[in-house]
């Protein structure tokens, strides 16, 4: 499943990273606790989070996470977009809750890390 398929499935919008719409997503992790995200060894995963701040994007940068979905249409700031662009991170905004997003992705075959 690629980023474009996920956007369609979640009725979501891409905030930045249009060049990577065909990026394949295999694994996902959902958390608002960035310290927990920073313990993950697997990289190039999708992060589902309700935490929409610069540290969420910085955490993705350090962890080599290449796609972030922010739930509940939380505002994604210009600062976040700038850091995401610098690191080729796709940022997606969805009106669904983190639980709903995680459920849809799991049902569609995206694998959990634990």
């Amino acid at each position, binding site marked *: 499943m690629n980023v474009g398929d996920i956007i369609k499935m979640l009725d979501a919008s891409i905030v930045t990273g249009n060049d990577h719409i065909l990026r394949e997503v295999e694994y996902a992790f959902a958390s608002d606790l*960035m*310290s927990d995200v920073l*313990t993950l060894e697997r990289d190039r995963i999708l992060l589902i989070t309700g935490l929409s701040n610069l*540290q969420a994007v910085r955490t993705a940068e*350090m962890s080599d996470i290449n796609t972030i979905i922010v739930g509940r249409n939380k505002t994604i700031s210009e600062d976040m977009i700038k850091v995401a662009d610098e690191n080729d991170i796709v940022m997606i905004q969805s009106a669904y809750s983190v639980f709903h997003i995680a459920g849809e992705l799991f049902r569609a075959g995206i694998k959990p890390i634990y």
Partner: protein
Amino acid sequence: MHLKYKIAGGDFSNAGNAASSVKKILKQLNIAPLTAKRIVVALYEGEVNIVAHAWSGIINVTIDSERIAIVLDDAGPGISDIEQAMQEGFSTAGPRVREMGFGAGMGLPNMKKNTDSMTISSVPGRGTKVELVNYLDKNAY
């Protein structure tokens, strides 16, 4: 190669700038991705700790052909019981730090996990010094 970064306590908008800079340099130096990830994750957690807990800090990074040594030296409240601080789940972080996605008592243990050696020394009321060393395994990928 020697790099030096000044960190301001409480400045969450810039937390991660040092780790981001080091990450880009490690990539330019063709350091193996997994080795680089361990280093930058440990450094980022340490940088966030300075922003979250200290008044100010300096991070010195020394890179040579065999290892990367990072010294995070802060002026701040210090840690009175380092053994307790190293326990997963122990944190003195306030609500502002938790809003940023940190403060769950996972930072120091994760820094230890991602480094080949970690040494902490602290003087309560004065500050904390954390020294991290990672060896560059030429066979790593």
